[in-house]
């Protein structure tokens, strides 16, 4: 019996040590130690047949055989594992320079992206967001904003008039908004100050289409009406917004200017992000781009909204979103924004 056990042990160990495949180790385990038909298991099942005085010794020997087979199996497994891991750099190598398989993600339009960013900045400053109709009355778009009929200040905003057929409206009464500031008095009529609001929207002007002009473009205007609002607050707000959008390294310059609905008025310029002030067609080789006209709200506008200009004051500003998107992404032509070519869209 002991001889048989010894044979089993030697054969098993020889077989184990000769194995190179981890799967074979499992087969060997079954062959010798399998619960029902393992060669060692079968021998051990015959232990009770031995005379009682031999049982103890042979039994102990059988257990030693079992554990040495098990240990050898385990150590061989570790050995094989190690060998395999050592080899995987060769056996399992893949070409990592092949292109990745990308999830099929779409692209948001550059205007949507810049709008999201701008709104985020204004939210931090406590602004809410409003929007009204693009089809607007001449009154809200111009007259209420201190730009009465026949004012030369309307010249820069050549206007689309709505066809009035089959309607009670007078020709010239309804227009496509030329500026989103057209919402200012409407909002103030229905919101008690203090108020801080930004209004994104599409505006329309009769203009030819070229790299820096179009007849439809996006703006975001905003205003504050409150007590004790100063010009310095306006300049600080503009700086905060432009730096938030374009980074702290940009330079900002303010020129006095005139818009009907503000007094005093300023025009904010930003160092050209396209040419880094080296001069390019987009900044007309001045190194500066007009980015944000603004000013203190004209007392007539407050009066038109039913507010007492001796009590309330504020500022208003207008950021050209199309322009902002162009500058943000170094696009040299406004027409790119309305071109739905995926070769363009996929860049954003």
């Amino acid at each position, binding site marked *: 019996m002991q001889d048989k056990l010894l044979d089993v042990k030697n054969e098993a160990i020889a077989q184990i040590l000769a194995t190179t495949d981890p799967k074979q180790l499992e087969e060997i385990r079954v062959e010798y130690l399998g619960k029902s038909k393992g060669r060692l298991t079968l021998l051990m099942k015959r232990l009770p047949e031995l005379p009682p005085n031999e049982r103890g010794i042979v039994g102990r020997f059988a257990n030693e055989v079992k554990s040495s087979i098990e240990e050898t199996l385990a150590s061989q497994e570790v050995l094989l594992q190690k060998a395999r891991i050592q080899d995987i750099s060769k056996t399992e190598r893949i070409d990592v320079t092949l292109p990745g398989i990308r999830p*099929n*993600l*779409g692209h*948001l339009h550059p205007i*949507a992206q810049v*709008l*999201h960013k701008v709104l985020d900045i204004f939210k931090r400053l*406590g602004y*809410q*967001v*409003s*929007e*009204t109709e*693009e*089809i607007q009355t001449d009154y809200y778009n111009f007259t209420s904003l201190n730009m009465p009929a*026949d004012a*030369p200040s309307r*010249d820069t905003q050549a206007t*689309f*008039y*709505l066809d*009035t*057929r089959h309607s009670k*409206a007078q020709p010239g009464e309804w227009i496509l908004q030329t500026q989103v500031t057209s919402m200012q008095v409407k*909002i103030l009529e*229905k*919101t008690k100050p*203090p*108020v*801080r609001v930004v209004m994104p929207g*599409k505006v329309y002007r*009769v203009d030819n*289409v070229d790299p820096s002009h179009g*007849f439809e473009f*996006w703006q975001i205007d905003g205003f*504050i009406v409150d*007590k*004790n*609002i*100063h*010009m*310095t607050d306006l300049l*600080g707000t503009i700086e905060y917004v432009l730096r938030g959008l374009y980074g702290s390294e940009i330079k900002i310059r*303010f*020129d*006095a*200017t*005139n818009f009907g609905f503000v007094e*005093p008025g*300023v025009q904010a310029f930003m160092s050209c992000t396209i040419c880094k002030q080296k001069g390019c067609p987009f900044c*007309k080789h*001045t190194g500066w781009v007009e980015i944000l006209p603004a000013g*203190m709200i*004209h007392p007539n506008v407050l009066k038109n909204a039913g507010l007492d200009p001796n009590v309330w004051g504020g500022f208003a500003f207008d950021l050209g979103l199309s322009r902002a998107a162009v500058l943000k992404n170094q696009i040299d032509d406004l027409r790119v*924004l*309305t071109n*739905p070519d*995926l070769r363009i*869209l*996929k860049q954003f």
Partner: protein
Amino acid sequence: MLIPSSWLKEYVDIKLPFPELALKLSEAGLTVEKWEEKDGDIIFDPEVTPNRPDWLSLCGIAREVAALTNTHLKDPNEIALNTKYKTPKTNYEITLKPNYAAIPRMTSVIVQNVKVKPSPDWLQKRIKQIGLRPINNLVDITNFVLWTFGSPLHVFDYDKIRGHQIIVDLAKGGEPFRSLDGLNYTLPKNAIIIKDVGRIIDLPPLKGGENSAISPETKNVLLHSIVCDPVLTRRTSQSLGLRSDSSAISERGVDPNGTVPAVKLALKMILDLAGGEVASELLDHKDHNFKPWTVEMGHNKLESVLGLKFEPKKVVQALVSLQLKPNMTNLTNKSNLIYAVEIPTFRPDLKIEEDLIEEVGRLYGYNHFPKTLPASPVPTAKVAYAKNYDFEYEVKQILQSAGYSEIYTYSLVSETQLIKLGINPGKTLRVDNPISRDYEYLRPALVGNLLDAYKLNQANFPQIKLFELGKEYKGESLDKAKEEYWVWGIESGENFHQAKGFFELLLNNININYHLRPIEPSDHFNWCHPGRTALVFTGDKKYLGFIGEAHPSLLAKWAIKNRAVIWELDYGLLEKLATSEKKYHPIPKYPPVIEDLSLIIPDDILYSDVVSAIKRTSLLVNSIDLLDTHEDSRTLRLTYLDESRNLSDKDAAEIRLKILKTLKEKLGVKAK
């Protein structure tokens, strides 16, 4: 308007070199971005804001340069007013009939025995520098004086004025007028006109008349400088599409006290360069005496609006440098200090306190202002017309993660597009003055532009997925106009269920209850495939959108070769119904029983009918998913769950039997 700096130097000392001066003027509101060096002279082209008539003249710009750079100003007004005016020896006959509503001031003089000839070289040079063509001495003089003072002038051939009458009037509308450059116009109503006996001889300040124009033979002339009503001028100018240097100034408001110096300077130049003698008194017709007015500015208000502290002395200095005349009520007490500022008539833009505050602010220079943020607390009350852009961005991000790329297209579309879509242009909102026929109507649906975009990309991309979220302009006429937000998508191929999967993802994400049914002929959906389209409704049966293969005939109209799936969603409704609330459900305490059923479903039975039949069978059916489709059979994975106990195999078998029985009896669906 071109300004030669050598000419400007005749009125003001210029100490700053040019790029700096341009920047300084721009900072103060007179934008100078364009200039050119020519023959040692710098000629610049300022952009003048619509509130400043005075900046459309050398005098006005000289005043600004003097104020900004603190240099000496030679007031050309004084030069002109000091011109000796000789009493005429003869007085030519003339009758002037003013109309002060049209021309509030008109200053005229007659000169006899002039010689019309080319201007001397120095004058021709000036005229060329400002971008005009030298004509003859008389015309060149009027342009020279216009540039100097900003006062429009005109010379008539005195002998051509019938009856020696100058009658100011307004056109009735429809009158013909032939200008001195030989062009014919039909006058609009209320155009300012000057007539003699029976004829229109001038259309001020836009064009002189051919019938009264000077010629080489002209001997006697009537010269006048006029102030035209800004509104009437602007309307006529717009109506005729006609602009001139004189009309640009007139629209902004000519200095009513500028006509006398202008006529005097022009007269002096005529006598010098064309000879002749004065043949009339200086005939000055004016509505009233145009006096300076006073605007008050409180020191407190100044500091409060600008957010800066000022020394009253500096404020006064700034105002004086602009030729304004401030008088103080109380210099010792700053808080009650009021500046009563006399405004000269050449500054019609200064009307209210804020206008003066701007003058102080812009001279100080906004680039020297400190920068602050509003100190008051953030308002919390909800603003009117609030719009939820957070939600919009959320929807767009879901679209983006589903592989859709966003496009922004024009709201204005062509009639051709409407007709291709089967939309009646007569019942679509339209602009009266489109820039071209391509952009005439307000799009009543986004689909046309989306198909355009698809077509544009089909050559370059085998797989296309595009969306646009934007306004559609509904209503048959302006009275019923309504702007609605919709979102439209298009994707290549015929994988309806892939697009539908996106719908399910989106609507689940924003917690919207919906149901969906196949399209029926009575739905009148011409843009979609009649057998491959579903309509989507909200829980309370409002139309939410559709999803379907684009109709082959629609694709054919756009010359799109492959099949495509299109969809629309009422974004306004989405925004209204969406919630971001998520309700937590605890993980079930008892394990579910999961089993797969393979069913053979007859052709006329919808999957949704099978699902609702199963759901109605037992409350223990927790979820039903489609696992697989193979030829005529579909494999459904059912999950049974009882929240209160373990389900046994026997329980599951009972449910299954009940389900199969119901399906067979009600729908003819059999187990495979």
